[in-house]
């Protein structure tokens, strides 16, 4: 019996099969054990049972949970920018945008990206998509342009942390179902794209990077005197919140998760306890520099806790 061939065949119909078995080697070990104990005739049924058992442990729903979690945050962001650009929901902001068309164009661009993310994730989830919340409440953020930008920074920096926190929960072989099409609108132009077969982890990373670009823009525009004159750049220094909720930059609210999901001021990376002393440089790297050089992930419980007040269930 050629075990490699069997697994190769299984991989053709289910690319994730070896991931589900942890590794090809463990699959071979498991099958090898079985093959010693059974007759050739009964082998296929027993092997089939072994695979079914493994597959049943991973129904695919963990990935859907991750994607629905991402979708909730994207819906939040999309609604936030959509409402901010409408006179009915945010008259003070619309007046500011009228006085600063460059800012409005950028916010519209970000809104288009967030809407595209919603459309993309919705399409990728297909029948497994979760229902949208009944609504959102951004009234506290829409009073002044500076309040709006501060909240935008919180959402973008939080979004970056949220995606980063899920990277390890997405199989690197997971793909979007074949012939999945998405229709999106950018700067008023509608287009339809087939995302079937796209690697889900890669798409998540691509969204993650876009959110980081948004965050950097919002942070930098707040540096302008007209928008608060906040002393910051596109990156996060220590755990400075600069007006945003401090929880956005803090460690996980679950104590047992705080090592894996530390505050943005974290100095420990990849097993090195403190990069300011663990790396040799002249002058030595400062805590501010090390914290800026690495963004930190955040767990879903903490993220949901921060986003919760803006969401009507």
């Amino acid at each position, binding site marked *: 019996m050629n075990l490699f061939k069997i697994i190769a065949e299984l991989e053709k119909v289910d690319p994730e099969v070896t991931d589900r078995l942890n590794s090809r080697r463990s699959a071979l070990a498991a099958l090898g054990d079985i093959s010693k104990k059974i007759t050739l005739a009964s082998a296929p049924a027993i092997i089939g049972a072994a695979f079914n058992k493994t597959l049943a442990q991973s129904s695919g729903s963990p990935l859907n949970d991750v994607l629905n979690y991402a979708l909730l945050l994207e819906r939040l962001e999309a609604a936030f920018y959509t409402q901010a650009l409408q006179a009915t929901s945010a008259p003070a902001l619309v007046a500011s945008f009228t006085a600063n068309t460059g*800012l409005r164009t*950028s916010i519209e*661009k970000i809104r*288009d*990206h*967030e*809407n*595209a*993310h919603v459309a*993309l994730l919705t399409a990728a989830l297909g029948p497994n998509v979760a229902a949208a919340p009944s609504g959102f409440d951004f009234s506290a953020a829409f009073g002044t342009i500076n309040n709006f930008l501060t909240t935008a920074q919180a959402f973008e920096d939080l979004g*970056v942390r949220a*995606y*980063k926190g899920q*990277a*390890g929960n997405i199989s*690197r*072989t997971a793909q979007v179902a074949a012939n999945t099409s998405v229709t999106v609108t950018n700067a008023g132009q509608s*287009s339809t*794209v*087939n995302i*079937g*077969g*796209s*690697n889900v*982890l*890669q*798409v998540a*990373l*691509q*969204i993650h*990077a*876009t959110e*980081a*670009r*948004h*965050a*950097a*823009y919002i942070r*930098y*525009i707040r*540096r302008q005197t007209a928008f608060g004159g906040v002393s910051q*750049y*596109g*990156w996060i220094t220590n755990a400075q919140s600069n007006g945003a909720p401090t929880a956005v930059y803090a460690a996980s609210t679950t104590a047992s998760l705080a090592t894996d999901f530390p505050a943005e001021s974290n100095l420990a*990376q*990849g*097993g*090195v306890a403190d*990069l300011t002393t*663990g790396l040799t*440089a*002249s*002058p030595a*790297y400062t805590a501010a*520099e*090390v914290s*800026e*050089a*690495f963004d*930190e992930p955040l767990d879903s419980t903490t993220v949901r806790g921060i986003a919760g007040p803006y969401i009507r269930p």
Partner: protein
Amino acid sequence: MATQPPVSAPDEAGFSSQLLQSVNRRSFLRYSGMTAAAVGLVLAGCDDDDNGSSMPNSVNLGTGNVGILNYAYALEQLEAAFYAQVVSNSAFATTFTDAAERTALQAIARHEAIHRDFFKAAINRDAPGNIIADLTPNFSNINFTSRTNVLETARIFEDLGVAAYNGAGRLIDTTTAAGKTYLGLAGKIVSVEARHAAQIRDIISLGTFSNDVVNALGLDRALTPTEVLATAQPFIRETINGSNLPS
């Protein structure tokens, strides 16, 4: 294989080939790649009588997760060397008259140096003997006293770094604890590169943080190592061989 969503056509290739022209072999700068910013600068002239020493060596990134780490290390070496030269240039303050722009570039220089030194330490610890050599950058066609030229080059490097990490994530074998850590680290670094990219772009022209790199689906670029190395190669003296990397 998977049909990827379309990404915007990069303009890097044209820029790079332009830079490739008229390479000045008489003076190029060599960086040690080990120490911070202004320190590791050694001028290494090479003349036509210098048999063999000016021939570029080949650097093989290797296989598996170590190969991916070396790939990231190579790109971080390139970025760190570039910014080190930007901020140590004697005309830095007159090239960048805005103090906030100087502060931003100095900060990015430190971030990239930290990334480089961190990868070096991680590879030496986790895969002793498998680390690639210090690379010799070739910046002979970059005008370090031109604000525009420096910022455009920075934009290319940052956008390229983002696309490289985005494309490499799925190439990391996460069946081991170390592999999971590497994917996590890639995630921690790639968003900082994206922040750099947006910052540089907004310094060039406010509001261009995502122009021509984020597509209609709101996706930043993801490039394969082959695509990334083709853009990076003109800036590196050694020939980078990524043919054994996972794909």
